[in-house]
């Protein structure tokens, strides 16, 4: 497994910091916390332990611990008052870092990095860290809260920590105050934690107060601390529940209007999100990005009985934010609605301003799609390839290009990797077996070009959901040579989407030889992870693939798109050139530095231009232009 910790922070003046550890009983936790904390780089920092009225051995043990100052409170004042007592006792010139006593400090330079993040922008007031559970799962990379439920959610929570959210400085709505670096200027301006809360919501409240005063809250992605969550109170779930509900009511009364007022647009989004399809995966990302861009989106499933996809959608998307969007109320005729899916469901659009957002993998669109698109105020497609296809098919309505994107928190070159330990160079491809993806061309060409004695392998992640298709027979029919390049298959295995970046990072080169693409999300995600890529030089992905960041695969021309999919009938797609594919694979295998450089360039370009935030901002611009 590779390490994903970034380069050391730039030198920043070591502003004095008071590290405020709040403790109440549980000496076992406090002892471990202090032992690990005191072993880290604490230049120009003082450790102040606030003993919040402990009744166990904590007072005596603290008195015997060197290197700390102790503030003893006679009774437990709770999290807020306890921390405020510590802030009041801190050096009035110093920044303050609030720390829970159930933290474990396993990173020597955590404080210099938080300091550097705080110093990177004069308007940064609060800096948090990534928090990880002792079992290796990510617990916290910032927080968000939806006005609908007023229930704060932690970003990245409980995912296996594979290096997601490691951007050095990333602005967020809030952080949990298990670890919070607060600048002195902010403390001087807005004071300590609000006394409206005894525990819970005080951290989100503080970040909102900071924002109202013009300060930013960020997470420093290069700092990860271990948090044995709720260590000091985990034996009393009833009191936790009571505290939570009381604080939530207080928070709603205080911030409800402010949070609801943050939305600038309202939109009905009719699509699909709880099935393993390309539209569903991208729909989820677009919805999250739109919410972040202040669009109050309500989601409704656009397929179901009497549509081309008659299944009912499962209710649970296993994502809190998306579940809330699904239950938002919406009028029967909302001002604006987007149907994101195949154009043959555009007729379900309920908006007064109707927008249809679709894509297809061939050079034109079926007649009934065009008829449905003609009834839209405007049509969105992700690529010039599809805009031209619609125009050629007779659509006369306005067509806007709204590209899809990538979440660079989950797809970036610094992710954990599990590379082949045998040292073989690994080409990788991921596809559902079918005519469009041209698997035979890839397997046959690789097997012909390489020999089994060469240190190279092709790994194919293959999906087959068609009971009429016998994959073993299909592959045997290719008559692959025993002495040819060796191929392994990941067959019908589904990985959590958040882990796919790690899969790509574990390979050396991504190959996509498909005949046509409406976008090619796996290719874009692999490129965002810094993988060099070979991809057919035809289709929608030409928006982001070029000679400078990848290896475009020449085509011999276009041929009739003959496939099971009825939408392709009468249209054409690409005929990739096997000789050029052979040449490109050999080229990448023998010129690895060149390939790595292209991969690195791809990762930079995608992070700069092709994220979901870019997508959401283009959508917001279109909504504004349409008066929606």
């Amino acid at each position, binding site marked *: 497994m590779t390490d994903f910790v970034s380069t050391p922070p730039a030198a920043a003046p070591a502003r004095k910091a008071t590290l405020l550890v709040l403790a109440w009983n549980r000496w076992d936790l406090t002892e471990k916390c202090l032992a690990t904390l005191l072993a880290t780089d604490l230049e120009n920092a003082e450790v102040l332990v606030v003993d919040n009225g402990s009744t166990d051995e904590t007072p005596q043990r603290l008195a015997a611990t060197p290197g700390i100052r102790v503030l003893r409170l006679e009774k437990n004042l709770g999290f807020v008052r306890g921390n405020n007592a510590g802030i009041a006792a801190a050096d009035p010139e110093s920044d303050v870092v609030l720390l829970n006593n159930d933290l474990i400090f396993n990173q020597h330079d955590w404080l210099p990095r938080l300091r550097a993040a705080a110093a990177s922008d004069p308007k940064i007031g609060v800096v948090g860290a990534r928090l990880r559970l002792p079992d290796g799962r990510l617990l916290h990379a910032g927080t968000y809260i939806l006005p609908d439920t007023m229930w704060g959610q932690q970003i990245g929570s409980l995912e*296996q920590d594979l290096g997601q959210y490691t951007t050095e400085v990333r602005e967020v709505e809030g952080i949990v105050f298990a670890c919070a670096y607060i600048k002195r200027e902010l403390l001087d301006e807005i004071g300590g934690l609000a006394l409206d809360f005894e525990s819970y919501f005080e951290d989100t409240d503080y970040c909102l107060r900071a924002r109202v005063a013009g300060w930013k809250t960020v997470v420093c992605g290069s700092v990860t601390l271990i948090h044995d969550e709720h260590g000091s109170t985990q034996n009393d779930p009833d009191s936790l529940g009571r505290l939570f509900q009381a604080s939530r009511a207080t928070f709603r009364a205080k911030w409800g209007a402010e949070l609801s007022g943050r939305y600038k647009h309202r939109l009905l989004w009719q699509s699909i999100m709880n099935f393993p399809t390309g539209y569903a995966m991208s729909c989820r990302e677009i919805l999250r990005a739109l919410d972040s861009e202040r669009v109050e989106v309500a989601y409704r499933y656009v397929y179901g009985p009497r549509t081309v996809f008659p299944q009912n959608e499962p209710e649970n998307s296993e994502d809190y934010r998306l579940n809330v969007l699904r239950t938002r109320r919406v009028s029967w005729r909302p001002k604006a609605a987007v149907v994101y899916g195949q154009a043959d469901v555009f007729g379900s659009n309920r908006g007064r301003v109707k927008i249809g957002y679709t894509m297809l993998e061939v050079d034109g669109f079926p007649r009934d799609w065009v008829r449905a698109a003609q009834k839209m105020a405007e049509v969105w497609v992700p690529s010039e390839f599809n805009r031209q296809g619609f125009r050629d098919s007779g659509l006369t309505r306005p067509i806007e290009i709204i590209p899809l994107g990538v979440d660079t928190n989950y797809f970036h070159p610094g992710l954990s990797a599990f590379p082949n330990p045998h040292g073989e160079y690994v080409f990788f491809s991921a596809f559902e077996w079918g005519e469009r993806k041209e698997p035979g061309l890839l397997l046959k060409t690789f097997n012909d070009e390489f020999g089994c004695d060469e240190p190279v392998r092709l790994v194919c992640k293959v999906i087959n959901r068609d009971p009429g298709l016998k994959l073993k027979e299909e592959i045997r029919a290719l008559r692959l040579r025993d002495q040819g390049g060796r191929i392994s298959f990941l067959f019908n295995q589904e990985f959590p989407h958040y882990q796919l970046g790690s899969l790509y990072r574990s390979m050396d080169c991504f190959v996509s030889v498909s005949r046509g693409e409406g976008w090619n999300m796996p290719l874009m995600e692999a490129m965002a992870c810094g993988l060099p890529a070979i991809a057919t030089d035809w289709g929608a992905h030409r928006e982001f693939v070029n000679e400078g960041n990848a290896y475009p695969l020449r085509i011999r021309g276009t041929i009739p798109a003959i496939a099971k999919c009825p939408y392709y009938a009468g249209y054409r797609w690409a005929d990739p050139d096997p000789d050029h594919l052979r040449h490109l694979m050999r080229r990448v295998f023998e010129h690895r530095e060149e390939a790595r450089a292209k991969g690195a360039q791809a990762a930079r370009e995608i992070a700069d231009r092709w994220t979901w935030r870019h997508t959401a901002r283009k959508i917001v611009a279109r909504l504004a232009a349409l008066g929606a």
Partner: protein
Amino acid sequence: MPNDRDALESALRIARLEARVAGLEEALVRRSRELRELQRQLPGRELLNLSRRAAGLPPVPQGRYELEIWRETTALSTASVEETLLDLWQSLTPTPSAQR
């Protein structure tokens, strides 16, 4: 007569030994036939594992990553990237020339 008895015992021992050799030859032919049949019927990986077990070595780790070992299905199975890749790499026999 001692000489006649010695000759008789000797002839009997030879006869027993000849019978034993004939039995062993027959067993060898039968075993060879069985091995040839195994070689015809078993996939390469099973044959390799049979040899490794016979030599007191552990079997090559099993993976689901080669055509012959797949179970053809249209059902998707959920997997973790880390566990799957570690299993995949472990199941492979590296090329001798592999250098990273």
